[in-house]
């Protein structure tokens, strides 16, 4: 077996068998499943429970019909009398009741009423009253109905509504947070692994039989594969949860987004892993790890914050302008694609730029790693590591 494969295999096995890796995976899965399932449980309040009683009983059917037409979620029921209605509102059995009192109408609620429900009921009551008065004054009911129908403005949308908008938004958020977490997590795994070999000095034995680039690529490959497995697991659980709640539709688009996200994960991982490894090779002790990985974490954090900002804006926005930049792209591109903002040309440009960046990172990172991995003791500067040979 080639040394790179042997090293990758060792890394993979070591990670996958590690208790904290498994615990981390389970925790992530629970969080993902929870994040998808819980909101749908909370949101499902069944709409406003609305009651009519006494003289308002006649409004039951028109109210249900009007609610359906205006897409307002309410269930209309009939209650024996106003006192019962009030009591049931107080108990929380009902959200609101329409009662006739003192020659007028009252909507009885405990604390507040959804504005759209209030508007709907108000309009209906007013319309009924106006209609009754006009008929009493001699207006033909049929004529009145046709006039009312003609005077109802219809909604004319200039752009077709995307029925998937909410799902896309959720997906784009999920994709960016997962990629961000995974890249940070695996990056620090690579850094820890490099320092472990350095601080335990086993690197000297390894480098007496393999070349530095082989050790580096084996490590990056092995940890990358472990991360991919983790990500695939997370994806499967996430999709299963989403399917269960119906919040994401499992169609071609969704799978496309997942495929593209995995591709970007790999691109991002190879880029960042090389940087993390090179950074880690500059120090000799586990305690110094923060000083070298923090600057790299910062780049990822910037990308993540841009993506979070972008999730909450409509259209590509700022993220759409910078998503192609290598280093930011592994998080921003999948997010933009999931949100439905990125074009194919943009995607190709970003991939090309990223491949160049990976090549440059591998070249510089490999050189830094090679020059510093056998230099023990005080921290080596990036500059010194790039300059020195042997």
């Amino acid at each position, binding site marked *: 077996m080639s*040394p790179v494969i*042997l090293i990758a295999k*060792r890394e993979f096995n*070591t990670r996958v068998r590690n208790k904290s890796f498994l615990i981390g995976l389970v925790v992530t899965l629970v969080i993902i499943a929870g994040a998808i399932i819980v909101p749908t449980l909370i949101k499902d309040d069944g709409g406003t429970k609305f009651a009519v009683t006494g003289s308002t009983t006649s409004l039951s059917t028109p109210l249900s019909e009007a609610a359906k037409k205006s897409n307002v979620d309410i269930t209309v029921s009939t209650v024996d009398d106003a006192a019962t209605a009030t009591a049931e509102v107080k108990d929380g059995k009902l959200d609101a009741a329409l009662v006739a009192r003192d020659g007028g109408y009252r909507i009885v609620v405990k604390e507040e009423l959804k504005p759209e429900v209030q508007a709907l009921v108000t309009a209906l009551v007013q319309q009924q009253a106006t209609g009754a008065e006009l008929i009493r004054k001699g207006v033909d009911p049929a004529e009145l109905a046709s006039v009312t129908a003609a005077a109802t403005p219809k909604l004319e949308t200039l752009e077709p509504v995307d029925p998937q908008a909410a799902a896309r938004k959720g997906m784009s958020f999920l994709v960016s947070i997962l990629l961000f977490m995974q890249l940070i997590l695996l990056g620090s795994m690579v850094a820890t692994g490099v320092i472990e070999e350095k601080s*335990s*000095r086993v690197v*000297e*034995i390894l480098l007496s*039989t393999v070349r530095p680039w082989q050790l580096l690529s084996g490590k990056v490959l092995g940890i990358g594969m472990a991360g991919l497995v983790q990500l695939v697991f997370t994806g499967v659980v996430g999709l299963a949860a989403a399917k269960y709640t119906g919040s994401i539709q499992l169609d071609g688009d969704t799978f496309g987004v997942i495929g593209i996200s995995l591709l970007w994960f790999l691109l991002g991982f190879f880029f960042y892993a090389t940087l993390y490894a090179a950074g880690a090779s500059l120090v000799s002790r586990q305690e110094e790890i923060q000083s070298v990985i923090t600057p790299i974490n910062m780049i990822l954090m910037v990308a993540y914050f841009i993506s979070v900002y972008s999730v909450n804006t409509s259209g590509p926005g700022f993220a759409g302008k910078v998503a192609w930049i290598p280093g930011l792209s592994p998080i921003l591109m999948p997010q933009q694609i999931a949100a439905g903002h990125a074009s194919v040309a943009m995607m190709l440009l970003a991939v090309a730029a990223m491949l160049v960046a990976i090549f440059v990172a591998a070249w510089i990172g490999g050189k830094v790693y090679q020059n510093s991995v056998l230099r023990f003791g005080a921290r080596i500067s990036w500059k010194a590591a790039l300059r020195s040979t042997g």
Partner: protein
Amino acid sequence: MSLDIDRISKRYGDVVALREMTFSVGDGELFGFVGSNGAGKTTTMRIALGVLSADSGAVRWNDKPVDLDARRQIGYMPEERGLYPKMKVGEQLVFLAELHGMSTADAKRASLEWTKRLGIEQKLDDEVQKLSLGNQQRVQLAAALVHDPKVLILDEPFSGLDPVAVDVMSEVLRTKAADGVPVVFSSHQLDLVERLCDRVGIVRDGQMVAGGTVDELRKSGTPRLSVSAPDAPTGWADGLAGVTVVEYGPTTVLELSETADDQQVLRAALGTGPVREFSWAAPSLTELFREVVKA
């Protein structure tokens, strides 16, 4: 057939670590590499293993430059011991053997065999960090031997070993040499080197300053005259023509120039009282080492 270190030089900035370091170790030969700290032993070994690169010079094995393939045939024990602390002994040895080009089956067989030979076979499933220091050393030796190396380069293999482990290590080195493997090791325990090695090289300031079999080296040193005269006061030999005093003590140790007359020394000694011992001897390796390193 031999391992040849041919005029390798290395500097770290302004510090010269090696100056045309040269020696060769024949097949089946045990070569002891001695010198003060910082003399260049570790640097030489690291260069031989390709862990460091030399500024100039070459390392050859069987008249061919040592490349990565050749290095896979070398068993190496670095001065700073190194193993994966959280990896199990057995898995680690198999991994290292495979990395040196062994098949998985051979690697498993060899790691079992070496752990048995070194008395740590019951530790195969333990993490290295959980072992005692002595057992970690044994695993380290097993790591250097598990891939059936054709050359052994060991940096301070005896440091930190208990007497039993020293015997085990010596035995293993002798056996490997008897199998025809060139063995180079560095050590500060000169009595061990004297006992074990066929040939010894003494390094000072990055240069080989003396080399040869232990006997040759001892003969090359200035012979010393030991005089045991119990009643002689300190200073009794001062002023004798051509005589340098190495030390006074129960036995006085002297060095004589070529023109000096040992019979005159004997007469002076008899003048102080009885003389119980009067003998010429070659210096021990330790004495020689001090002499060479001081010069």
